[in-house]
Each structure stands twice: as structure tokens, then as C-alpha cells.
């Protein structure tokens, strides 16, 4: 079984088997475009849920309740602040989560006491949080600032490392697509956008670009070693590099996705581990999208950016002409036997 992927890897390496990632770029661009539109449309239509950290409000959680009856919580809150809007959810089977409008500190403590009494647990078992609406805005602003700074710095560093800004541009563009798709799919799943999800999405920056750099490094190696004598067009060189690193891409994304998926499924079952759940969903989507976009978007975009350079264009023409010439005798040889 394992050897099947190894053989597959061999064939990809030698070029015996090859997926036309670069040549079929129009198809991939269209698919990416449709996905981007969906990623914007679906959340826009269905609405994006922001977690309490972004909305502002008060939240109470109690684990391991003997009688998880939501009405107890309703009554407890109503007893303290009758006018508050209350949402009660049962989490993980025997946990209670109560969300209300933003309560004052004093009311908040009162509600904690009332809930502890109502569910017959010690007061220390009630987890309460009170979040001002500016908190989420603060975090978001810092995250966006971080995003901008990272894109700029990473762009410059990659341009220096690869000695061409075109690789940098292709990598950053595909990274932006990753971010849009990750946020879109995350929101479409219906999970709340929480600070943990923001962390996950920011990590995608790191992962997606990392993945792109690995593949681009192989592209750089191939195209640099080919030189003028190469009998492949530029696009073919790029495509070969992508194919040669395909097994790595698959292995890497599987290995990265496995722990994340295990957090997602275990985190989803545990009360209060929303942090784990949100982070891992964002990461899981991001890892898959990031691997996909490197192969299907970043590499073709880079090839497209370079192909128009006069030197490369000339070389490509030469290669194609030679190939035609080589093909002719083959055909003429083939004809008599036919």
C-alpha cells in the first residue's frame, strides 16, 4: 500500500506521470474565483456570528451539572436582572452556558451566585466572563495590523531570498486567497468568530506561506539548474517541480492535519474547550486550503508572471521549435511502418 504512493512519487519525480497544474491554470483560476465569491457571499447572506468577545456581554458556564435544566438559568438571571436577554445552551451533555447582555460587575456576581444556588454547585464552579465591546475590536485591530506587517515583511524577505519579486507576489496573492477562503468556509460552517478562531486564521499565514516556500524552493532549484540548455519550457519546469514535491505536499498536509483534526473532534465534545475547537477548525480549513492553493494557484501564477519575460519567452519558443523538429522525423519514421 505504502509503496503505491512511493511509486506514484517516483512517477511524479521522473515526469512519467504528471498533473498539469501550470497548463490548466485557467481552470484553477476560475475555480478559485468561484470559491472566493462563495466565501464572501455565503457569510454575507447567512450572517456571520461573532463570539461574545466581539459583541460584548456576560457569559456564565458551569460544568458537570446534575440537572442541566435551562429554565433554572433563565430564572436565576431573571431574578437579578429581569430585563436582560438570556440565551442558555447545554454544552457537552451536562454543562450549562448562559449568555446575557453586558451586566454590571455587581449584577454579574449576583447572577453567578444565583446560578450556583440554582444548580446546586459551589460558587467557585461557575465560570463567568464579562467582556466590554471594545475588547474584540482591540484584538481585531491588532490582528489586522499584524497581518499587514507580516505580509509586507514576508514579501520583502521572500523577494530577497528567491531573488525575484514575482515569486513573492505569487506567494502573497495565494496567501490572501487562503485567508479569504479560510474565513469564508469557517463562517459558512456556522461557528462563531472568536479570538481563538482569529489565532487559527493568523497561523494560516505562517503555514500557507511556509508550504509555498517549500514548493517554490524546488521550482527555483529546477528553473535555475535548467539554464539555457533546458529542453523544457519554463512552464513545464515549474510544473515538474510542483509534481516532484507533490508527495511531500500530500504527506505534509496529512501530518499537519491529523493532530489538528484530533483537536477539532475532541475539542468539540468537551465543555468550554471552545478555544481548541475554534482554533482547530480554522487551522484544518487553512491547512487544506493552503496546500491546495500552493499547488493550484501560487505555482501557475508565478509561471504566468515569468513567462512574459523576453529571455524566458525566447527560450520557450526555441524549446517548442526544437520539439517540433524532433517530432517530425519521428512521425516520418512512424509513417512507413503504419
Amino acid at each position, binding site marked *: 500500500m505504502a509503496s503505491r504512493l512511493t511509486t506514484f512519487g*517516483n512517477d511524479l519525480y*521522473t515526469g512519467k506521470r504528471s498533473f498539469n497544474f501550470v497548463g490548466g491554470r485557467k481552470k484553477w483560476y476560475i475555480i478559485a474565483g468561484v470559491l472566493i465569491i462563495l466565501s464572501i457571499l455565503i457569510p454575507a447572506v447567512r450572517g456571520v456570528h461573532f463570539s461574545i468577545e466581539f459583541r460584548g456581554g456576560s457569559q456564565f458556564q458551569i460544568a458537570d451539572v446534575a440537572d442541566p435544566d435551562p429554565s433554572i438559568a433563565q430564572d436565576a438571571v431573571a431574578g437579578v436582572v429581569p430585563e436582560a436577554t438570556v440565551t442558555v445552551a447545554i454544552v457537552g451533555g451536562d454543562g450549562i452556558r448562559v449568555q446575557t447582555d453586558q451586566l454590571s460587575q455587581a449584577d454579574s456576581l449576583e447572577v453567578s451566585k444565583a446560578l450556583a444556588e440554582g444548580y446546586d454547585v459551589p460558587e467557585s464552579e461557575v465560570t463567568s466572563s464579562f467582556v466590554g465591546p471594545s475588547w474584540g475590536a482591540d484584538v481585531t485591530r491588532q*490582528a489586522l495590523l499584524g497581518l499587514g506587517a*507580516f505580509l509586507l515583511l514576508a514579501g520583502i524577505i521572500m523577494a530577497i531570498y528567491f531573488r525575484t519579486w514575482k515569486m513573492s507576489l505569487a506567494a502573497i496573492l495565494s496567501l490572501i486567497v487562503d485567508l479569504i477562503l479560510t474565513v469564508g468556509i469557517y463562517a459558512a460552517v456556522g461557528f462563531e468568530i472568536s479570538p481563538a478562531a482569529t489565532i487559527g486564521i493568523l497561523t494560516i499565514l505562517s503555514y500557507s506561506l511556509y508550504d509555498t516556500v*517549500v514548493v517554490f*524552493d524546488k521550482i527555483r532549484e529546477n528553473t535555475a539548474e535548467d539554464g539555457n540548455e533546458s529542453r523544457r519550457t519554463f512552464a513545464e519546469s515549474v510544473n*515538474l517541480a510542483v509534481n516532484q514535491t507533490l508527495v511531500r505536499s500530500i*504527506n505534509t498536509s496529512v501530518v499537519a492535519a491529523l493532530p489538528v483534526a484530533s483537536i477539532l473532534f475532541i475539542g468539540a465534545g468537551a465543555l468550554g474547550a471552545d478555544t481548541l475547537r475554534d482554533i482547530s477548525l480554522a487551522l484544518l480549513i487553512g491547512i487544506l486550503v493552503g496546500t491546495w492553493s500552493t499547488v493550484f494557484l501560487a505555482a501557475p501564477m508565478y509561471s504566468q508572471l515569468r513567462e512574459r519575460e523576453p529571455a524566458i519567452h525566447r527560450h520557450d519558443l526555441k524549446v517548442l521549435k526544437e520539439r517540433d523538429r524532433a517530432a517530425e522525423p519521428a512521425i516520418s*519514421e512512424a509513417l512507413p511502418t503504419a
Partner: protein
Amino acid sequence: MAASSKRSSRPTSVRKAWRSLTWLGVIIVGLFAINAAGVIWGGASWTPKLALDLEGGTQIILEPQLESGQTATQEQLDQAVSIIRQRVDASGVAEPEINTEGSNVVVRIPGELDDQTRARIESSAKLELRAVLATDAAATSSISPTDPASDPAEELSATPTVEPTDGSDPAWITPALQEQFDTFDCATIDDPDASVAPADEPLVTCDQTRTMKYLLGPVEASGENIVDATNGTVTTQTGASTGTWAVNIQFDDKGTKDFATVSTRLFGLSGQVPRDQFAFVLDGAVLTAPSMNGAITDGRPQITGNFTQESSKALADQLKFGALPLSFTVESSETISPTLGTSQLQAGLLAGLIGLILVVIYTLFQYRALGSVTIASLVIAGVITYLMITILSWREGYRLSLAGIAGLIVAIGFTADSFIVYFERVRDELRDGRPLVGAVEAGWKRAFRTVLASKGVNLLAAVVLFVLAVGSVKGFAYTLGLTTIIDVLVVILFTHPMLQLLAQTKFFSSGNPWSGLDPTALGAVYRGRAEFRKPVAVPAGKVASSSKEAQRRQTIAERKANAGVGAGSSEGKES
């Protein structure tokens, strides 16, 4: 050529490998030693400290109250942090964590937080010193018998008719102010709009017990100028204790100067109750308003009154710790029960364990015996990471949060990827027909560059996030950056040396099918066969337009051209 390089590379690569492994051993032993030393002498522990979301406790985020356009300076925030820390320490809470995040002050208290400590933290506490102009009993009529300064002006003018000369000048009391003072209700003192006045204007307020109303002059000194406040008994000139409790204040230079002026003036008004009194105003309410018994020019006033030991201590604390440079409001407050924290920690660890097992199974499946190098590398990386986190939580106060655990679990995949990149490069070299030892060296050269470049991007992301982000994002970025560095370290000092050594063993160099580096399975023999293949490929020329086909042909053709003639192919077959 291949043979000679093999001969010479064997001893050097082995020697290098052992040297790297020795360094790794030194690092691990060193980290162990540091931590052990910390455990024995420095109060460190073998387990990392946990953040609130795992340990349970309370987190309060305080936001400075600023007028629009104003920003809090880092100095002010640092000052606020140290004052709040003193307040919390005074309440005896173990291991509070107080620091600034952006322009907010974040207080994290493990375990249960009693109401008293909470009040200590949340009271924004801005201390002002103002001269008393008038006093009155709280719930009274507008007649103020104790008020000698009341101005019987007819019209309610809001601006003083005579420019006040100092903070005790009755000219401050305009008819409008008198009216406000007369009608002031002490019950309204907690309203945000009540009892606030600019520093250079008089203030109408009450004392904390709401039994007395005060009309106070402008601010003469503020709490920031108080260096220290202690309680003690008053001593006679011979040093004998009188048994009377007092609060001793010590001002800084500016405070000393200001207070000298004020005390000289107030002492001059001695006997003119209440204008010889001086009010300490905490958050708009009068804490105490002693009368001046002398001109104090050394900046060390002593407050006496009907103090007990407790009340003098409380006042001293308030004077000392109440000196926040900014007012704060509670932006968010979060209490996490220890039960919830534990269950989150367990969920996180379980998820990590399952994730790790899945990765192990997949790697063994993919890379067979070579997978064991991955697993060993992960274990080494895990050990170093654990030690680093434990040491950092001891030295730098790092605390492992749920987001941090997520970062570590995610790092399993990212770390394993370095090995995958490396192994795939080695396999590529094998496919090109190199012998294993040479393939390991050549593959390493290429892979190392890629690993460094890509990990550099990872590290950049971690650093940017760490510098710019707040709260839990920071903890996550920290673990991400740490594991990235450890990952590179492990690849250099463990994975590569291990592969160098394993390449010398018969199991691997003979290309055992279970080694994961079987040249036959990797198609290295292609090279020898390419000659036979070529004629087969030629008729395919009719589809030259298909780049896919073209590529196949090209590759094989080039492969042949590149093939260092028979040497490589015979080598490939031989192994």
C-alpha cells in the same frame, strides 16, 4: 569517483554526525541541569505553570479612562501596574500576574478571588490633596453652622468676583458653588458625574462614610507625589511610644515642596475650622481631612486622629497604593472554575496524544523504518520543548494556556514536515541513482536550504504576531516561534546525524524494503532502463503538442544525458 568520495565521506560524515549528536546531548543535559538547579535553589518546578484558562482563576482587564485624543504613556501604565501589584500582594494572593497589554492593564489571579481583593484591584483610585473650604453635615438643611466661609451673596454668580490668591481663599466659593454645596446629596456620590472637578477648580463632595459634606479648593498635590505611607504609633521626643496610632506619609521632592507651601498656609489659618484642614480625596470621596498642626517642610507629615491599628493601616495602604496615575474601568472580567480548567487541559492533552499517535502511524506507514527517525526526532523536539517551556515559565513567567497547547499540538505537524522535506529530498537523490551515503549528504544540502527558508517564514510570522498581537494570540505566537527554532535545531543536530549514521548500517544501505529507502522501490533502476525505454517513447512524438507527453519524453532524454554513464546505473542495481 563515486567510490573515492564514498571512502573519504564515510569517516568525516560519521565523525560529524557524532559531534552533532554530542552537542544535542549537551544541550538537553544542560537544559535539564538548569531546570534541576531551579527546582533545588530557585523555586522552579518540573511542570510548566498553567495559565488561568487551564488552572482556573480570575482575569480582569482594566482600560484607562482617558479624555478623547489623550493616550496613556507606557510610564503611566507601568506605574499603574506596579501599584496594582502592590495592592494585590498586600491582600496575600499567591502568584498574581499583572501586566500591560496594549494600553490595557491585565490582572490575572489564580484560584478564587475574594470580593475584597477584587475591590482593591478594580478601584481606580486617584488620590488628590485639596484644602478644605467648607464642611457640613451630610443630610442637612442649607444652613451650615460650621461654615464660617459662607458667602452671603445675593446673585448666584459662577465666577469668583475676586481672583482667589491660594487654595484656601474663600473667594473660590461663588454663590453658584455655595448653592451646589448646600443642595449636594451624599447619596449621589457614586454617580459618575458627581464629585468630579478639574484639578484647578473647587470640588464638592462627601467623605467615604457619607456623613460629612466638603467644599474643597483646587488640587494642591496628587497621590503620585506620595512615596510611602506607613502606620505606627506616635513616639515622644525620647522615643517612647505614646500608644496613639498615626499614619506617616513621605512625599517626593515635588510633593515636599507643594506640601510645605500648603501646610505653612494652613497652619497660619490655625483655629479657623475648617479652613485649617486638608483633605485627601480618593476617587472623588474624602478619605480623611486632618487639620494642620504645624508647618511641615520635610515632606513627612504625620496624620493622627482616632485611629486603631487596623484603621491606620487601611488608610496608609489607601494613601500608598491609591496613587494611580490614571483612572481605570473594568473592560472585561473573567472567572474560570478550576474544574473547567482541568477538563480543558485534559481535552487538550488527549487531543495531542491522539494526534501524535495518528502522526506516528502515518509516518511509519509512509516511511517504514525511516519513520522511526521521525518519531525519535519528534520525541527529542518534545523533550526540548517541554524543558524550554518549564524553564521559561520559571524565569520569564511564561504560562501555558489553552491556545499555547493548541500551538504545541499544531507544531507536531509543522515539525514533522521538516523531516518529510528532508526525506523526500534524500529519496529524490536516490531516484537519481546516488548511493545512500551520497544521497543523504546531497539531499541534506538541498533540504537544509529549504527548511531554513521556510522555517524563517514561520519564525517571522511568530515574531510579528508576538510583537503586535494581544492576549491569547501572544501565547500562541510564543509557542509557535519556540517550536520553530527547536525544530530547526533538532533537524540539524538529530535527524540529519541519525540519517548519516543509519546510512552506514547494512539495513539501510542495502536498501531493505522495510527501510523506507529502497532504491528499487524508489525507481532508481529507471536509470539503467532508460536506454530501453527511449525507443518506446519515440512513437509518442505524434502527440508532441501535449505537454504532458512531451515532458515524459524530455525527462527521460535528459535523464540519459545527465546519467554519469554506467557508474550510476550499476551502482543502483548493485544495491
